[in-house]
């Protein structure tokens, strides 16, 4: 068991850029999602086909989750949140294809997602409240809390990254260990558990991203809820 789960080996090089396995799987999933979305949404009609109905159901479910968690209209957040969820779900489940290792089982992919969530938190916070308004949230409840609030911004992103990485990687790792101990069909229950863990972790990552972004834009919500005619 000399293969470290924390390292990736380059498959081949394009110029100075090393291409690793997770990169290829990531791009394959991205291409799949984009082509699927283009293919289904090319002929949208008021009387939906089967694929369009499924897609509308899915988008509706994501909207409902955003509305429930963030208490805002889902419009500006649907694309980011939905993409994060669909991509992580497909990435976690891609390990079911023989020979493919889930890209989320490597720290780099999860770190990229954490960086996206971190930047999105700042972006939506600044866009909703303005720069000074967003910076003012760091002084809540008092200015004594400023260092603690700044540290919290960073540590929660780290825990988000390590949570996704650890869960998916431990699934892969346990599968490898069980496979080295016992034969062909024994790891199947573990893989089934992996499918469930992958779905739950995709959901948790998305919900936490929603909570982080929601807390950055939260004050605006309280202001708007005091105005009677806005919904």
């Amino acid at each position, binding site marked *: 068991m000399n293969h470290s789960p924390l*390292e990736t080996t380059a498959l081949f090089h394009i110029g100075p850029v090393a291409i690793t396995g997770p990169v290829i799987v990531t791009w394959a999933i991205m291409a799949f999602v984009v082509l699927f979305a283009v293919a289904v949404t090319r002929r949208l009609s008021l009387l939906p086909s089967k694929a369009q109905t499924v897609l509308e159901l899915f988008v509706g479910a994501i909207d409902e989750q955003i509305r429930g968690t963030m208490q805002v209209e889902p419009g500006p957040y649907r694309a980011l949140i939905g993409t994060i969820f669909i991509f992580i779900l497909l990435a976690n489940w891609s390990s079911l294809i023989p020979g493919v290792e889930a890209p989320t089982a490597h720290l780099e992919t999860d770190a990229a997602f954490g960086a996206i969530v971190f930047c999105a938190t700042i972006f939506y916070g600044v866009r909703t409240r303005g720069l000074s308004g967003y910076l003012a949230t760091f002084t809540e409840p008092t200015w004594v809390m400023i260092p603690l609030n700044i540290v919290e911004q960073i540590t929660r992103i780290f825990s988000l990254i*390590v*949570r996704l990485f*650890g*869960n998916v*990687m*431990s699934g892969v790792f346990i599968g490898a260990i069980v496979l080295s101990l016992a034969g062909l069909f024994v790891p199947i229950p573990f893989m089934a558990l992996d499918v469930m863990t992958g779905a739950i972790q995709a959901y*948790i990552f998305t*919900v936490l991203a929603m909570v982080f972004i929601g807390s950055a834009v939260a004050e605006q919500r309280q202001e708007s809820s005091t105005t009677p005619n806005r919904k």
Partner: protein
Amino acid sequence: MDNTIQMVSIFAAAMAVSFGAVAPALGEGRAVASAMDAIARQPDSAGTVSRTLFVGLAMIETMAIYALVIALLLLFANPFVK
């Protein structure tokens, strides 16, 4: 004794996982017990309770996973081992 650091690291990795699993196990036990209690009282809400339970369990389990990540860091990416 050239490989003292390796020996200590392996021991520390085992300790990290074994003790790091204790508290999440207790927490998960409490969570499942409460969920069973809730379902027994209100069988109608079994769907909601079990859905929330799964998400909560995954959150608690993450604490043990953190310990596992630390253990794997010690084993595979130990900064003190060349």
